[in-house]
């Protein structure tokens, strides 16, 4: 619970538009700043925090060290991005702001977010560091954003010039999936020197871990909030059950609709476009060749319901079968149709096929299908009706043809 006055130096230069830290560098930085302010004011009520920006038109102090968290958070809104960061001036202005703190008993600390490349040379930074050390000001550096060659070394040199008895720290945060604030929570910048973590930091870390990748189910720690976790789990189960019931209902609907329109579907389109043909299903179909057509269809449907996605694209098998036997071809085609017309797209598919112009255009685009072929024309005509007798009509033309 060190009594501390902190000045936070924010980088609001053009480099902060970059999106390699979610959601953008600037927002990630702002989140981290808010978190730090909260942690500092919570760890000791007499702590004060101030904020200044280093880029823009020049170094500007947004709020002088105050213990009013609301004032600090308010000034973080509406910050503009632009200009170039001036690290040296920023640190010096921060030092001046700390010098004029109201409570002289507070330790002085500066936290710098260095996102853009550092254009000052090492000597200047080391001189600044020595001056800070001489006036017993601690410095925390957050190195993120631009990975300029020489930038880590410069910042490390600055740190070693400032560091007095391990009171100053540096953190390098590479771009990645973790939020900037989450990474900072576990660093000494938050936990303080050897305090082992204030309550705020520990709670924030737990929340971050729960919400993040380290994965409690549903992102809620059952220890922290058992009721919420239970509610989430129950609702997930209910949703799953509901979806299964819906799927079953749709499947039943599909089977009913299938029986209604068995002969009239344009299998050509589906055959070439979709890939989930079932080789095993084709094999089984051969056994049922002698059965009635409806029985055959029902079996195809059953197969499709049991095993919607297990097959590979077996176009070669399909064409082979077509050459062998027309009935088989029909059955196969319809089985393809079944697979395609699963519960979700059932109605859409039938509508699409009902649109004759659409079907004819697709047929025209297919290789080896001549729209002027009488059988194809009959097929198209039958699409209008969608009834059993049409099927018989179609069959003789097909047999003639082959």
């Amino acid at each position, binding site marked *: 619970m060190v009594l501390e006055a902190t000045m936070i130096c924010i980088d609001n230069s053009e480099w902060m538009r970059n999106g390699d830290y979610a959601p953008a560098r600037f927002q990630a930085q702002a989140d981290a700043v808010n978190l730090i302010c909260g942690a500092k004011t919570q760890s000791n009520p007499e702590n004060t925090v101030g904020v200044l920006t280093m880029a823009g038109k020049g170094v500007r102090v947004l709020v002088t060290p105050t213990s009013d968290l609301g004032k600090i958070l308010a000034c973080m809104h509406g910050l503009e991005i632009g200009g170039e960061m001036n690290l040296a001036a920023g640190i010096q202005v921060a030092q001046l702001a700390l*010098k004029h703190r109201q409570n*002289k008993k507070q330790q002085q600390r500066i936290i710098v977010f260095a996102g853009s490349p550092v254009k000052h040379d090492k000597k200047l930074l080391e001189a600044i560091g020595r001056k800070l*050390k*001489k006036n*017993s000001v601690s410095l925390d550096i957050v190195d993120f954003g631009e990975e300029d060659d020489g930038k880590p070394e410069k910042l490390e040199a600055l740190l070693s010039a400032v560091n*007095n*008895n391990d009171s100053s720290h540096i953190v390098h945060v590479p771009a990645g999936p973790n939020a900037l604030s989450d990474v900072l929570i576990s660093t000494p910048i938050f936990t303080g020197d050897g305090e082992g973590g204030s309550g705020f930091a520990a709670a924030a870390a737990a929340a971050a871990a729960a919400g993040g990748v380290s994965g409690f189910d549903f992102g809620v720690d059952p220890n922290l909030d058992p009721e919420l976790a239970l509610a989430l789990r129950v609702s997930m189960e209910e949703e799953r059950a509901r979806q299964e019931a819906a799927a079953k209902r749709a499947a039943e609907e599909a089977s009913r609709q299938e029986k209604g329109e068995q002969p009239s579907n344009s299998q050509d389109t589906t055959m070439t476009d979709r890939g989930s043909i079932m080789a095993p299903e084709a094999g089984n179909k051969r056994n049922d060749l002698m059965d009635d057509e409806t029985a055959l269809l029902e079996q195809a449907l059953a197969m499709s319901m049991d095993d919607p996605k297990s097959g590979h694209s077996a176009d070669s098998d399909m064409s082979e079968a077509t050459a062998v036997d027309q009935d088989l071809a029909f059955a196969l085609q319809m089985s393809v149709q079944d697979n395609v017309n699963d519960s979700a797209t059932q109605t859409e598919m039938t509508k699409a096929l009902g649109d004759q112009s659409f079907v004819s255009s697709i047929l025209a685009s297919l290789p080896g299908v001549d729209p002027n072929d009488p059988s194809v024309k009959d097929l198209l005509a039958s699409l209008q009706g969608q009834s059993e007798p049409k099927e018989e009509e179609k069959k003789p033309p097909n047999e003639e043809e082959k």
Partner: protein
Amino acid sequence: MACLHDHNCEDHDCSSDWSLYKHIDLPKVSALNEAVSGSVKSVFKAWEQRLDSSMQGYLESNEGDPELLVFIPFTSDVKIKSISVVGGADGTSPSKMRAFLNRDGIDFSDAQSMQPVQEWDLVENFQGLLEFQTRYSRFQGVGNLTLHFPENFGAETTQIHYIGLRGEATQLKRDVVATIVYELMPNPSDHKTRAESGGGLSHWSEQ
């Protein structure tokens, strides 16, 4: 102004004169530009131990920077007659001393720009027998003392082994505003006007 101890120390106990160190608020003593944080506290000790720095160490400045600033608060107001400083060997002794009285939170830029209450040119004082007298009239009622050592005798760092203060301690505490209560909302009973409190001529009296 330096004075040499020109009497025999066997006659009387010199240490009783240099007992102001007992009135120093030692936990609140601080220094700027010290190499080891907290080492400044070791230089305030009894006169007999002024040359013995093996136990607690001594105050040393950072490498390459001989400036030192020592802030000494007292538990009660004191009157300081003279100051003695024992430095280190090989040019590490401070060569100048500037004193500021009753000021909080002085740092190096302040110390360099402000006019001190008094300034001395020091000499190397390895035995601790030299003392530097103050303008006593100015050093009455001292609540805290800040000593600034800007230079030394040529070494890279400045070492101070002992700082002795001679004078008297009063039992008084300096006038400090201890508690301030800020009003968030005005309390009307605190702000009675003269008319309301019944005093003074009333403007509504018949003329």
